[in-house]
């Protein structure tokens, strides 16, 4: 808080000194979002009486302000997560205050930031700080960052600091993170290569964390652990006409932690993509391998927090309400995945393309475990035993266990001036046991059909109808062992619809339902009905919604946002200035 005052004092101080000139050149911008909720109890989605705890009214919101003066920018973000008995949130996020502030000077050659830093090295494999405010996620780094661009096409970065850990004080125990990154765009920096057909960018980074204490007591035994853990990564991006290739490799030294069961194995990760594209056709093939790459600034961190590195999931992000209930979560301890995607537009005025053209998309992705071979410890073959080197793993061998597989196909067609149609088929394999951490849970092998029709009543009025169905491998008649009942909350067949009426660019009203009619447990055969009504004026959006909302990405009223599970009535206001 004190630091904020220093900042404000200086802003005011300098304002007075420079007077008129200052006001002409400086600028204040910002944004607000407020979600007010009235909750009711709903065990089906995790809103229990216990969680509500008598606080039926809840509110969460943020206010962001930014001040800019030429090359100087300063900003802060106030956050409030009050009385939020919402599932999907870590309870430790409850609270309010100025969560974030920063000041930056950047003249294009040199840039310095002090305060809370969001940045990413390459694909973020060994360093990425970001925030998903609506999910209560923020791993920003409080410290200092310097960026130096000596010549065109070359960027060097260095940073140092400590990560945000909910509302914990920055003097509290957890590690320091420091990193450097360099990127070199050959075409921009070498004049003879400016117009070369081959485009090439190279990059490299090094990140290390320092966490005090080299003795760690784990289950009554004392282990020696490294205080410094270093990781490095190298990357290349190539483009040649219609072809593109990119790859990044990262390596981390041994980093025993709660997350990897305290093993002393090095970690590594490879991410590679190959693409071809021309007007109307795009093809991309991606592959990755992750082995023991959980990288956090506190060894004992057990939740989705204090991540230094980011492991990009390679799969299609489903936004329709039924398939998005089964979204893949990356497995930092080990996974191998591929993804293949084609986007194609059948040209206008052809037999298949019709008057407006037809858009097709196909996506295939699959993620398996890595193969782990046992090592000898205390004369016995073991895998992933505490205090050992864990296991060995052949780089190109794929593990037998499949975590996730998705293939989907989409056709999108404007049929006439007034009618627009989208159809999608999805085939999903979802290993609930691994992804949700429910040992013994039956994997989901489901088919989904999705259809959307938009009818334009006139230039501004439209009606949109969405229909979805999910066929699960768990049938309504299946006998469920009472021990595993909680793993069947979202199993069985589903039906969903959404009906929306919009008046561009300002008004929308919608009603939606998801119905788990085929759940094997009778009391789970429930409806999730929501209604929304809203108004948009320029950058301000006000929406009122009510009903039962399960957690996930919700696209309604013309925007998409990630929402936590809730039940009750909610008012959302978003604006910026």
């Amino acid at each position, binding site marked *: 808080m*004190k*630091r904020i005052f*220093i900042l404000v004092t*200086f802003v005011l101080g*300098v304002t007075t000194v420079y007077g008129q000139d200052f006001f002409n050149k*400086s600028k204040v911008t*910002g*944004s607000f*979002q407020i979600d007010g909720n009235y909750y009711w109890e709903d065990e089906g989605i995790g809103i229990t009486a216990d969680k509500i705890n008598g606080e039926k009214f809840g509110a969460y919101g943020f206010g962001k302000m930014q001040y800019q*003066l*030429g*090359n*100087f920018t300063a900003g802060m973000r106030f956050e409030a997560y009050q009385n939020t008995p919402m599932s999907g949130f870590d309870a430790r996020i409850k609270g309010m205050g100025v969560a974030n502030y920063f*000041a*930056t*000077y950047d003249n*294009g050659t040199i840039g*310095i930031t002090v305060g809370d830093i969001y940045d*990413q090295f390459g*694909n*973020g494999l060994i360093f*990425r700080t*970001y925030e998903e405010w609506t999910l209560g996620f923020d791993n920003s780094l409080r410290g200092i960052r310097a960026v130096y661009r000596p010549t065109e096409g070359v*960027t060097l970065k260095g940073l140092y600091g400590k990560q945000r850990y909910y509302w914990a004080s920055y003097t509290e125990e957890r590690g320091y993170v420091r990193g450097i990154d360099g990127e070199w*765009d050959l075409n*921009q920096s070498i004049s003879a290569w400016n117009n070369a057909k081959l485009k090439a960018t190279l990059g490299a980074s090094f990140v290390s964390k320092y966490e005090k204490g080299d003795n760690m007591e784990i289950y009554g035994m004392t282990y020696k652990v490294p205080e410094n853990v270093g990781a490095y990564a190298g990357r290349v*991006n190539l483009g040649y006409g219609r072809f*593109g290739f990119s790859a990044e490799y990262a390596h981390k030294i041994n980093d025993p932690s709660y997350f990897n069961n305290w093993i002393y194995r090095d970690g590594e990760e490879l991410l590679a993509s190959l*693409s071809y*594209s*021309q*007007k*109307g*056709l*795009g*093809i*991309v093939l*991606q592959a990755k391998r992750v082995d023991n790459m959980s990288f956090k600034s506190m060894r004992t961190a057990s939740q989705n927090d204090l991540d230094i590195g980011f492991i990009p999931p390679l799969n299609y*992000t489903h936004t329709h309400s039924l398939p998005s209930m089964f979204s893949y979560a990356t497995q930092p301890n080990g996974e191998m995945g591929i993804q293949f*995607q*084609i*986007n194609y*537009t059948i040209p206008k005025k052809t037999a298949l393309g019709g008057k407006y053209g037809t*858009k097709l998309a196909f996506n295939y992705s699959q993620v398996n475990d890595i193969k782990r071979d046992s090592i000898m410890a205390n004369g016995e073959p073991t895998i992933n035993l505490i205090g050992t080197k864990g296991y060995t793993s052949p780089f190109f061998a794929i593990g037998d266990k499949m975590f996730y597989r998705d293939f989907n196909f989409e056709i999108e067609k404007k049929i006439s001036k007034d009618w627009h149609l989208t159809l999608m088929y999805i085939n999903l394999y979802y290993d609930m046991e691994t992804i949700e951490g429910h040992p013994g849970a039956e994997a989901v092998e489901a088919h989904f059909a999705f259809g959307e029709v*938009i009818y*334009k009543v006139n*230039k*501004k009025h439209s009606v949109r109808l969405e229909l979805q169905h999910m066929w699960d491998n768990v049938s309504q008649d299946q006998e469920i062992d009472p021990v595993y009942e909680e793993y069947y909350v979202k199993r069985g067949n589903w039906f969903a619809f959404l009906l929306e009426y919009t*008046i*561009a*660019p300002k008004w929308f009203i919608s009603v939606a339902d998801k119905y788990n009619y085929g759940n094997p447990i009778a009391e789970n055969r429930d409806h999730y009905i929501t209604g929304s009504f809203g108004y*948009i004026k*320029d*950058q301000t*959006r006000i929406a009122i919604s009510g009903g039962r909302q399960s957690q996930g*990405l919700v696209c309604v009223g*013309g*925007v*998409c946002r990630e929402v936590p599970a809730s039940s009750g009535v909610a008012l959302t206001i*978003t604006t910026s200035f």
Partner: protein
Amino acid sequence: MKKLLATLLFGMMFFGLSAQNKSDLPNITLKNLDGESVNIAELNNDGNPFVMTFWATWCGPCVKEHNALTEVYDEWVEETGVKIFAVSIDDARSTAKIKPFVDGKGWPFEILLDVNSELKRAMNVSNPPHTFLFDGDGKIVWQHTGYLDGGEEDLYQEILKISK
């Protein structure tokens, strides 16, 4: 530490003042689809108005908006000289997919990659899609959050107001 911070801040502001601040475009460098660095502060359209949209591959309304804009783009350019910069806020999971995605959809816009939401934060964008209209000097003259079918017409009226 505090003294150092205060000194740094003061220094930054002092230097900040000496620079010109003509437009509403922040000093942030993003990559385009050819991997080239583009300084956002230098974005322009030769004195003509330009549009900046924030979108993501996973955002249905964004895709709808860009499909609708694609259909009218040639006409708009001819009439007003406008240009559209479409800023993708997809993160590293999709970076390599953007070019094939955009080409496959046949979008004619200039794409910029905001992989860590740096520009999104600087422009105070909360949820995609979010569309800005800039005049020839890079000043924001209009903005809109969300896309409802037919919403592009409204944007066009705003462009007509400021195009010469």
